[in-house]
């Protein structure tokens, strides 16, 4: 018991890291879900910006209950996802990536412009810290659980088919438009939710916070951890958050470390750390089972 208390005491100064991991995992899950459905959209940070500013404005200026404000942020993210799904469905591959990048940049520019609402270039300050670390952990785990359950069912199979071969998926009765819209709605809602939580945790918001750099951080986390499982994004975010903390001298070169990780992982573990490990373990198990069966046969 005493040991646990001491451990908690030791961990307490690192609680902000836990916050970062939870929020980052939320964003990464939102990013991973569109990848899973075979869409190359990077709109997550845009959805997150909508959720964050919505929650912050409702709490600070309208006096909403924080839970309600976050719910509204989630809803706004979901709506944005639905709206963006139709135009992006017309495009493929890199064109989707560029269009969603444009969406994020338009949002950032508007946040900077509508100063009376968002604080403009100076940022939005004076947000009360209402979200506790344990809430973040619970919500993150619930989101992961929900995505896991969805992934096991019809939606997961449809996403898998669409990613691997859209024409074959369509010929097997998967309605590509429907599942495309579902993936965007989920992505928007999750990013909106964690954006709202991020706003009520961080005291202040700036537009740059949701620009190109968070987009890269999210993308890196998903690619690093693995983009086909629910655990992959968590692994990726944890590595990216903890690595500069563990190797303190590296903290100054955070960007370079990110960059190096991306290049090396893409070259050697193209499916990400967690997913590649899982694939290897599955291959080994199958090989073992095959060997056992082969041995049993006369």
């Amino acid at each position, binding site marked *: 018991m005493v040991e646990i208390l001491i451990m908690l005491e030791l961990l307490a100064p690192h609680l902000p890291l836990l916050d970062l991991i939870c929020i980052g995992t939320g964003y990464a899950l939102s990013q991973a879900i569109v990848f899973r459905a075979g869409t190359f959209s990077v709109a997550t940070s845009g959805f997150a910006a909508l959720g964050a500013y919505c929650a912050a404005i409702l709490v600070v200026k309208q006096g909403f209950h924080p839970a309600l404000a976050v719910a509204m942020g989630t809803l706004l993210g979901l709506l944005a996802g639905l709206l963006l799904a139709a135009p992006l469905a017309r495009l493929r591959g890199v064109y989707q990536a560029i*269009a969603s990048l444009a969406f994020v940049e338009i949002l950032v520019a508007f946040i900077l*412009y509508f100063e009376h609402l968002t604080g403009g270039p100076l940022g939005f300050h004076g947000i009360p810290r209402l979200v506790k670390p344990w809430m973040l952990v619970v919500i993150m785990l619930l989101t992961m659980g929900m995505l896991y359950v969805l992934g096991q069912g019809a939606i997961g199979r449809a996403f898998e088919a669409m990613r691997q071969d859209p024409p074959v998926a369509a010929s097997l009765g998967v309605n590509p438009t429907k599942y495309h819209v579902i993936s965007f709605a989920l992505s928007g809602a999750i990013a909106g939710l964690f954006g709202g939580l991020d706003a009520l945790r961080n005291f202040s918001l700036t537009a740059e916070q949701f620009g190109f750099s968070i987009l890269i951080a999210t993308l890196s986390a998903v690619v690093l951890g693995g983009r086909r499982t629910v655990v992959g994004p968590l692994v990726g975010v944890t590595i990216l958050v903890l690595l500069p903390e563990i190797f303190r001298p590296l903290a100054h*070169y955070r*960007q370079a470390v990110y*960059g*190096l990780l991306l290049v090396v992982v893409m070259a050697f573990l193209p499916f990400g750390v967690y997913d590649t490990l899982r694939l290897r373990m599955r291959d080994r198990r199958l090989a073992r089972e095959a060997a056992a069966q082969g041995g049993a046969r006369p």
Partner: protein
Amino acid sequence: MIAQQVLNGLVLGGVYALFALGFTLIFGIHRIMNMAHGAVFMAGAFIGLFTVRAGLPIWAALPVAMIGAGLVSILIEVVAFKPLRKLALADAELASIISSIGAGLIVLSLGQYVSKTETLRFPFGTVSAEAIQLLGLRVTMLQLLMLGVALLLVVGLAFYLYRTPQGRQVRAVAGNYRTAQLLGVNPNAIFYQTFFVSGAMAGAAGVMVGLAFNAVQFLMGEPFLLKAFVAIILGGMGSIPGALVGAMVLGLFQTLSAAYLPALLVDAMIFLLLFIILMVRPDGLFVQAVTESPTKRV
């Protein structure tokens, strides 16, 4: 007044053209989206700046910067793209984007390290501040230099691609990689050549932009890359004449909207334009009937 803005727009368009041509060259030939192109541009500006500071005149510093940026570009090819060629095409698309973002981050942090996160300036009088009157317009020496360099390099690129044996090999690889290889073209040599040309043009653009705003800093490439997407998409990704026209349109659009709109809305307008182009004409203005439509490519 408007004629002066048009002139300024064309000068800016010339610089965008240098940048966009290098990007579109790589995409057109290798189907690679080089997200590190902005970092190469920044590297070119740095090399040019330090050469000028070492005492060389600008007409000597420009070729040095171009060669330096070209070598950085080759290095990125070797580190970030070469290991990915074993992947299937669908996987390689995402992998090369992520990997080049990583390579770009490494170059970026090198720039940050070298400049100590400061904005560096060219020494006073690097380019004469004189202006001449031409048909009632005020043209600075710098603008003349920018237009001249852009024109020279674009003509040079066209000559290289369409009038030299090397250019014929490059076009053969763009047409069909396997066939070109069977006909005795060394693909690696083509990769090095095209990445060098692409990087050298970005480097020239970097020096020009560094001179025009008299500011060289490690983050200068990223917004430039994002905006250059307008030029690249408008002309059709991979199309050389398209990128040229797209860059001119972008230059004019940016200067005119900067002259008549609130400054904070200029970026929003540019990215809105990008989004609309992608929705209306994702193939750009110069689609050839024989090329595959990118919207149908899976």
